């Protein structure tokens, strides 16, 4: 009972600063093993996916041949769209994605409670990562930002974390707001003015307001729009374009080139 009271008090006081040196030592020891274990797990998952899909391969091959023919015709149209995209990007004042100074990092761990609150990566302050550094995949899809940065590893607070708040806007309509995590269940685009237009299928991108996040990083797509509980704002449920639990490599944006 005394022991429970002592640790209850410890939780209440939460002296994270005092514990950080111990945390760094433990995680420094665990990191190499985590790297091996995580990459092995991702490889095993890939093998499981492959084995599960062997029976479907023949059917898929026929489908792919048809799709290939359709895609060839679409390529020509995409050339036009590329030009249009460049124009839109210029109008929205988005930073071209190849302008970011990126550092690649391997994922070595995840939130063990299944809430999808955080990832752990094998890069830290010695690689130029600081608290708040945006973490992306495919050079332009935002997944979160760095926190608890140590010399050689960092925790990434994912967008689904309830503590995560990022300024965003609709790429199509320019409606501004913030996205908040929903305890691992998804992402909520909140604080949208009632007078602003947001529609299902709108892409949500970072607005760059506040200056701590580059403008134009993709967050996800609007899936549903509804008024907030107090009816003062609109809210939109946003789906991320990737499955974060299967990531093995991410990129930290150290700055712009």
């Amino acid at each position, binding site marked *: 009972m005394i*022991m*429970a009271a002592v*640790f*209850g008090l*410890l*939780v209440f006081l*939460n*002296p*994270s600063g005092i*514990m950080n040196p*111990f*945390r760094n030592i*433990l*995680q420094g020891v*665990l990191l190499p*093993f*985590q790297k091996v*274990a*995580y990459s*092995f*797990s*991702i490889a*095993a*998952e890939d093998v499981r996916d492959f084995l599960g899909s062997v029976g479907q391969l023949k059917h898929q091959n026929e489908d792919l041949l048809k799709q290939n023919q359709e895609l060839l015709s679409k390529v020509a149209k995409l050339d036009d769209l590329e030009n249009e995209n460049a124009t839109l990007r210029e109008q929205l004042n988005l930073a071209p994605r190849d302008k970011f100074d990126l550092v690649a990092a391997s994922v*070595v*761990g*995840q*939130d*063990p*409670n*299944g*809430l*999808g609150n*955080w990832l*752990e990566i094998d890069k830290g302050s010695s690689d130029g990562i600081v608290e708040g550094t945006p973490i992306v995949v495919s050079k332009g899809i935002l997944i979160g930002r760095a926190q*608890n940065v140590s010399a050689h590893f960092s*925790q990434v607070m994912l967008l689904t974390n*309830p*503590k995560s708040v990022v300024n965003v806007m609709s790429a199509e309509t320019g409606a501004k707001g913030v996205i908040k995590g*929903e*305890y*691992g*269940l998804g992402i909520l685009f909140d604080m949208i003015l009632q007078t602003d237009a947001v529609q299902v299928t709108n892409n949500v991108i970072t607005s760059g307001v506040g200056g701590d996040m580059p403008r134009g990083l993709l967050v996800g797509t609007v899936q549903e729009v509804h008024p907030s509980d107090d009816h003062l704002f609109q809210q939109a449920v946003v789906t991320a374009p990737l499955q974060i*639990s*299967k990531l093995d490599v991410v990129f930290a944006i150290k700055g712009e080139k």
Partner: protein
Amino acid sequence: MSKKIIYSFLIIISILLQISVVPALSRSHVFADNVLMLILAWSVIDGFSGFLKWAVIAGILYDLATYSIVGVHVLIFLGAVYLVSFLSRRFAADFRGMGILLFLGFVIVATIFSHFVYAFVSAWEMDSMRGFALSLGGLSSVILEVAYNTIVFFIWFWLIKKTKNFFALETI
């Protein structure tokens, strides 16, 4: 000395599994809590007083490794160890010959208890009761987690028994 090394090794392995293997292999957001089940199985084998200090050590290591507030998992593990002790004393006679049902009871209560503690800490951190409800999850996810935890519990139980026999470690 060898006991300390073996116990520490198993705790570290279970933490590694929980952080770096299970989430990557899982296809849903519900999965087994390896470390909690290790503690539960071990406390069944070693008893309350024999395993208490190891539950505290495991809790601290797990908190440090998962960026949690230090003490959260210690409380959960202390609760689990106490629970095993209490339920064993209270129901061991009633469940004589039906140990598996008693073990299943341990797993169910420990899983629900850990859910409540996580949800409470999450709500307290966010200062929001909405967080409590969301972190608690639905009934189906709790049932699924109990099913996974039961399997993992018996794996750890078997593994600890074998390890103790192999290294001739005493059981209290």
